[in-house]
């Protein structure tokens, strides 16, 4: 192994009774914990449940769309299914997933801190999340909402006959949890870095979570106010967006997308961080252009606030506005492209190992590239006028949010699984699952590009028979995809009991989180770490990765 890796004398497993998992036992020790690592696991449990619920709605939709006629769901039930799917997947699964599970667990470890800045606030924010989620589930049980996740007015305020108030309330409350977590993360990164951990020594995952938190703090309140306005209009009949009394429904779209475009970056920026860690480790390379990666993240966070109008090209906004938003959408794609190129350049002359996390990461890069490029199609006004509100848009954002962000979540979970649980996952199964996710995903969503381009509108439960072949492909692919999501849950659970015990640093990765036992002790580090060099020291800066003295590849991780 290269000398650039600082090896400190650390025990592989913590002394009994010191591991955060076993230091205290009993249900109360979990529900009242302020340990960021345990709270991360609380989030994991809750978010997994929401993933199942959102997934169930998706299954219902894919079954319905198998044939051109309505057989499983009525039009109204279909509306409720895709609304529930969207609301749960966006606000209760994707948006909190990487920040609240991996971010919560890793942020303090990666910067050498004992915990987040406000441990009790962290627990509180989990409870707020649970309250919000319960309300969302109540919405479903009470009969659902039929407006779509976008809550467009005047549908949501005057016409919808579902439980809009409860759904808006659920999302509103979840916002408090998001903001509290983001404030916690930002304060932690500013004030709790270990000695020597300068800003430009932070791992890219930390940068990504930091930038995401800034977007969360600034965008989420706008959504909160918009929902409050809808709430007031619907509940108290106060005119705000009502065109009959001087209101303007388009204003709602502006305010909503002012939140929701940044929100799509809240969903994808954290995965950029995960992928950077994975690619560097499994290519045994320093990240190419580290500082550019940092600036790209910050650039996306900033310019992401300026492009919301690309969701409104056909809303009747002025041509000048259309052109400006189109131009800015192209500008926001530049840093995304920089990141893709830099990941590829990191692979160049790397010692690439195709372990499961790396397969997920490579899948991410491919799917994200397709999603990003089709974003540029949509940002071109003439193309968008043709394909807006079709399955082309559906395919575009699923490529990024599901193909990209969910791959990153699974890859990150596999990569840090030994750190979180102290057990190694079974590599063969994991590789199989990773490959299956890529193919299952492509089977499901690539046909949507085609049918969208051919004119299949989104949000319909019946369609003309010409499109059936594409829908059948998508539904069949969804079966594979569902299996690829379930499989890791199976082998992760298996590994908890039968998995091999993990050493402190099974992947010989850099990063402070690997410089402590697996699983970490309650205090994270026995001796507080001191940082003396830049991240990703996989090889000396002036020489390439050590090709000749490459360590033998051990798929089950390095065993002492």
């Amino acid at each position, binding site marked *: 192994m290269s000398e650039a890796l600082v090896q400190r004398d650390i025990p592989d497993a913590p002394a009994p009774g010191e591991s955060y998992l076993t230091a205290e036992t009993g249900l109360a020790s979990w529900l009242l914990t*302020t340990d960021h690592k345990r709270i991360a696991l609380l989030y994991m449990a809750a978010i997994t449940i929401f993933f199942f619920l959102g997934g169930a709605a998706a299954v219902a939709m894919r079954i319905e769309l198998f044939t051109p006629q309505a057989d499983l769901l009525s039009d109204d039930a279909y509306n409720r299914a895709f609304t529930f799917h969207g609301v749960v997947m966006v606000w209760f699964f994707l948006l909190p997933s990487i920040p609240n599970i991996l971010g919560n667990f890793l942020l*303090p470890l990666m910067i050498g*801190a*004992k*915990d*987040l*800045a*406000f*441990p009790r606030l962290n627990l509180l924010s989990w409870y707020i999340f649970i309250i919000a989620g319960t309300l969302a589930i109540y919405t479903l049980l009470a009969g659902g909402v039929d407006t779509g996740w976008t809550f467009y007015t005047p549908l949501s305020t005057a016409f919808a006959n579902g439980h809009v108030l409860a759904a808006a309330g659920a999302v509103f409350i979840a916002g408090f949890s998001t*903001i509290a977590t*983001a*404030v*916690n993360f*930002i*304060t*932690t990164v*500013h*004030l*709790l870095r270990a000695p020597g951990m300068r800003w430009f020594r932070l791992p890219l995952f930390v940068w990504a979570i930091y930038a995401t938190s800034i977007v969360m*703090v*600034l*965008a*989420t*309140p*706008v959504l*909160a*106010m*918009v929902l*409050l*306005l809808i709430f*007031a*209009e619907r509940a*108290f*009949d*106060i*005119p*705000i967006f009502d065109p009959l*009394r*001087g*209101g*303007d429904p388009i*204003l709602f779209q502006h*305010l909503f997308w*002012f939140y929701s475009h940044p929100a799509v970056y809240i969903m994808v920026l954290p995965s950029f961080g995960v992928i950077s860690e994975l690619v560097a480790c499994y290519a045994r390379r320093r990240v190419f252009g580290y500082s550019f990666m940092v600036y790209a993240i910050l650039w996306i966070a900033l310019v992401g606030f300026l492009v919301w109008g690309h969701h409104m090209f056909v809303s009747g906004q002025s041509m000048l506005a259309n052109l400006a938003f189109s131009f800015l959408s192209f500008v926001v794609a530049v840093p995304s492209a920089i990141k893709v190129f830099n990941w590829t350049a990191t692979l160049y002359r790397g010692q690439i190992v195709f372990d499961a996390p790396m397969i997920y990461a490579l899948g991410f890069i491919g799917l994200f590239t397709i999603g990003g490029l089709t974003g540029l199609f949509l940002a071109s006004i003439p193309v968008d006028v043709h394909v807006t509100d079709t399955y082309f848009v559906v395919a575009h954002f699923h490529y990024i949010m599901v193909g990209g962000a969910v791959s990153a979540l699974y890859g990150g979970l596999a990569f840090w699984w030994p750190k979180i649980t102290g057990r190694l996952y079974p590599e063969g199964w994991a590789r199989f699952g990773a490959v299956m996710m890529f193919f299952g995903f492509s089977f499901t969503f690539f046909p949507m590009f085609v049918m969208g381009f051919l004119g299949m509108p989104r949000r319909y439960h019946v369609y003309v028979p010409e499109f059936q072949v594409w829908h059948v492909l998508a539904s069949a692919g969804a079966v594979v995809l569902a299996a690829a999501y379930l499989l890791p849950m199976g082998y992760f659970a298996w590994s908890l009991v039968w998995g091999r015990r993990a050493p402190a640093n099974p992947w010989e990765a850099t990063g402070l989180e690997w410089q402590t036992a697996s699983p970490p002790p309650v205090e994270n580090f026995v001796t*507080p770490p001191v940082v003396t060099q830049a991240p990703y020291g996989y090889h000396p800066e002036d020489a390439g990765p050590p090709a000749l003295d490459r360590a033998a590849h051990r798929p089950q991780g390095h065993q002492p």
Partner: protein
Amino acid sequence: MSDAAMPGAALRKPWRSLRRQREAAGFGLWVFLGSEVMFFACALTGYAVYRTLWSEDFAAAARETNVVYGTLNTAILLTSSLTMAAAAEGARAGLRRLTLACLAATIAFGLAFLVVKGFEYREDIEKHLVPGPGFALEAAAAQVFFAFYWLLTGVHALHMSIGLGVTGTLLWQAWRRRRPLRSPAFEAAGLYWHFVDIVWIFLYPLLYLAGRS
């Protein structure tokens, strides 16, 4: 008087130094206030759009608000900010009596604000200024103005109430010596209070002075 020995001043879990630990409360609150700014900015943007669209109607509607109550409340709130600032400074300097008195005065001013606001709301309801059937004004978009009036002042009053709750808790804790005066909470509560004040500084001209020039 020395608070160093008091339990609340001890170093808590993630922190390596007391100075950092103190800094965090203020820092976190500033970040949170960034969030609050965007919250109100969203509604104020809506107000700005409609006021540009319906400037005549908005002016006519704004003339119906009670500028006497509004001005009185502005004065009350500005004074409360003064006492709050004095309380925070007093806490920092360890002056217990001053801190307690100023916190109590702040709470009194805050309650006075809410009472005045209550009278104003009652008058508004009597004058049928609540949007909906039977609304008093003819102008088409006057209802939109009053939609924002109720919403903005309501949300502001809610923020005031939260501020009062926090200040009340601090007063009680300081009085029972449960919380050392050096706790960063006093400064943080002050920051929040001033922010709520600043929101009002925006609302006052937009809701009361518009249409009266």
